[in-house]
């Protein structure tokens, strides 16, 4: 018996040693290996596209291999930072750009960008590029994004006796619709209050739709409570979750995932979301295909901006092969892949030269979101502490206000003070 155990021990040891040696040897023989880490690689609808992108890139560029780093969204930043701190970060990354650039984790792309011909550069509007800059330098190439709009379930709207041709245009009409769309075990919408920055994104769309501002122009002061229009919008929106309101219960644990689940299972009739949620919802419940329609956010002021997330590809400061990395970023930003991402994964293209592409035009809802994008502000907001402010501080205030609505004023006044301090502490 003891002989068997010793044998097993020896086997385990030699296995471990052999495995360690093997992986070491494989590494030494490789050509240039570029690691590529973005949170979206684990999204199922995107997987076939990125696999194809890598395969075609490697075929066109012998000697360069691209190694995807798969990581769950919630662990994406943790993993990146641990590696960046040891100067071992993957070469190509999509991360919170301002925060990463401020912390010295990213390489300025000005050199590469300026060396490109004007024909290449003209595919990106200056506004969109601004979202990828920190202190005047370009740190990422915008690849895709998402514009937030209001998405409705047509069947539920009709069933409630409402006319899909005339969706609500302002808060009052939205509330009127909301009342009719709410019943015993189904609701008009869901208020987002879970612990990710999606909560913040949707809150901002409501503030902007009421003509409010959450920050002053140079991001040195928070004005959630200071700006009366902001506070009024916050109260209206969070008020939907009060008892007898129009929102599904459990807002403090509701995020994108819970919201889309509710929508796919027809528990809610409308959701404030980006176009990619449609791919997710239809994936969950194929019966909803073709039964959805979208409008711009109901707003109390004309031309209210909505929110558009911008995801850019960057090169890590510690990357050993920046030229090769730029090659891949350019390849991935190509028209062809932008269109595929838009059609298959419902991610909005960032290039200005594909609105007329037949694939885009063939999808009316996609075209509609592209149009809404004209009035969008880019997100994340440009501040090094934004990631923490968006995912911690603002969410905390939203949760507190949802749990104790009577103290909303005070809670957001405290938020203003806390965030203003953070904005200036860099």
């Amino acid at each position, binding site marked *: 018996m003891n002989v068997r155990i010793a044998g097993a021990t020896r086997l385990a040891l030699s296995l471990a040693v052999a495995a360690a040696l093997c992986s070491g040897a494989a590494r030494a023989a490789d050509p240039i290996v570029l690691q590529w880490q973005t949170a979206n690689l684990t999204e199922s609808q995107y997987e076939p596209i990125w696999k194809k992108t890598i395969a075609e890139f490697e075929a066109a560029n012998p000697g360069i291999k691209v190694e995807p780093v798969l990581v769950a969204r919630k662990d994406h930043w943790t993993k990146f930072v641990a590696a960046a701190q040891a100067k071992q970060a993957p070469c190509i990354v999509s991360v919170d750009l301002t925060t990463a650039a401020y912390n*010295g984790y990213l390489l300025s792309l000005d050199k590469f960008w300026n060396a490109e011909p004007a024909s290449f550069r003209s595919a990106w509007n200056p506004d969109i590029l601004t979202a990828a800059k920190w202190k005047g330098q370009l740190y990422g190439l915008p690849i895709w994004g998402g514009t937030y709009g209001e998405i409705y379930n047509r069947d539920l709207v009709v069933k409630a006796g409402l006319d899909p041709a005339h969706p609500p245009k302002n808060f009052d009409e939205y509330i009127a619709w909301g009342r009719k769309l709410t019943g015993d075990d189904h609701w008009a919408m869901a208020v987002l209050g879970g612990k990710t920055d999606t909560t913040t994104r949707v809150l901002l769309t409501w503030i902007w739709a009421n003509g409010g501002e959450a920050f002053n122009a140079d991001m040195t002061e928070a004005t959630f409570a200071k700006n009366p229009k902001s506070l009024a919008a916050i109260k209206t929106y969070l008020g939907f979750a009060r008892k007898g309101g129009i929102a599904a219960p459990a807002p403090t644990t509701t995020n994108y995932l819970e919201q889309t689940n509710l929508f796919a299972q027809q*528990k809610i009739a409308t959701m404030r979301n980006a176009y990619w949620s449609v791919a997710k919802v239809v994936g969950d419940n194929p019966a909803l295909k073709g039964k959805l329609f979208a409008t711009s956010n109901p707003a109390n002021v004309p031309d209210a901006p909505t929110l558009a997330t911008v995801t850019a590809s960057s090169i890590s400061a510690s990357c050993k092969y920046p030229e090769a990395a730029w090659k891949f970023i350019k390849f991935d930003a190509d028209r062809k892949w932008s269109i595929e991402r838009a059609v298959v994964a419902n991610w909005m293209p960032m290039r200005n030269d594909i609105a007329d592409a037949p694939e885009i035009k063939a999808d009316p809802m996609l075209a509609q979101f592209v149009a809404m994008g004209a009035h969008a502000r880019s997100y994340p907001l440009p501040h090094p502490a934004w990631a923490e402010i968006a995912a911690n501080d603002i969410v905390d205030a939203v949760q507190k206000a949802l749990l104790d609505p009577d103290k909303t004023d005070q809670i957001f006044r405290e938020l203003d003070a806390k965030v203003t301090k953070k904005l200036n502490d860099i």
Partner: protein
Amino acid sequence: MDLAPRQRQRLTGYLFVAPVALFLAAVVIVPLGSAVWTSLLRVRGLRSSFVGVANYATVLADETFWHGLARSAAFTASSVLLHVALGLALALLLAELRTARTALRIAFLTPWMVAPAVGATVWLWLLEPQFGVVNYLAQSAGLIGSPKAWLGEPLSAFASVVAVDVWRGVPFVMLLMLAGLQTVPQEQYEAAALDGANAWQRFRYVTWPNLRYLVVVATTLDVINTVRHYDIIGVMTGGGPASATEVLPVLLYNTAFRGNRFGEAAAIGVLLLAIVLALVVVYIRITRIDRDAGDAR
């Protein structure tokens, strides 16, 4: 002449112990030193500057730290208490049953074999407000009127993470207690039975004195493990709602990886370590006195 062999003896002893000591020094103490150093720096990404104890001052002046400390104390106290009480109760129950003992023991051990992160994910699904089975069962049994957002309100969120930690933590204590029960001399029970002792008296005067030392050990280990625990709360609430479950390890994680303030995070970590250390020293003191008194009796 007599000294040489004794010295050689010593040396041999050191040679046997050295691998573990060197190993732990390299793998634990080197990173710890680096972490303590970090707690004295203002870190902004790859730039850092020495600021002395400024991070400690910042952390100690911030109410979130004290809030986290209070949450940690509440979480650890309730979890450990329930682990030990239920673990002991289950062990006593199993010892009483005559049949299917092994099968039951294995069944009760299962939660301990699941990774905390995976177990927490399963519970997340069970507690889902709209589609979760817990709400369905509670509603069917008439315990709640409408679906409850277990993780959405401060009190029930805290109770939920404690409950999941208890679900996972009881088996290990049960295992230790079962082992302890086997060491209780059978004659003592027989003597107690002859004296006409009832079940409570048998426990009070035979089982408990024999188990007390083990309970002390189990509690110490459990306090150390629970106060540092991150996985279950990290997965289930991330510290929310409204910071109701933001225990110190979660605050540490959020400060480091959400806030990118590594200096302050390291300071929180060092303070947490100091607290655990103090707890353990005090605990060992108390129990040693207790034990010495017991020996003297």
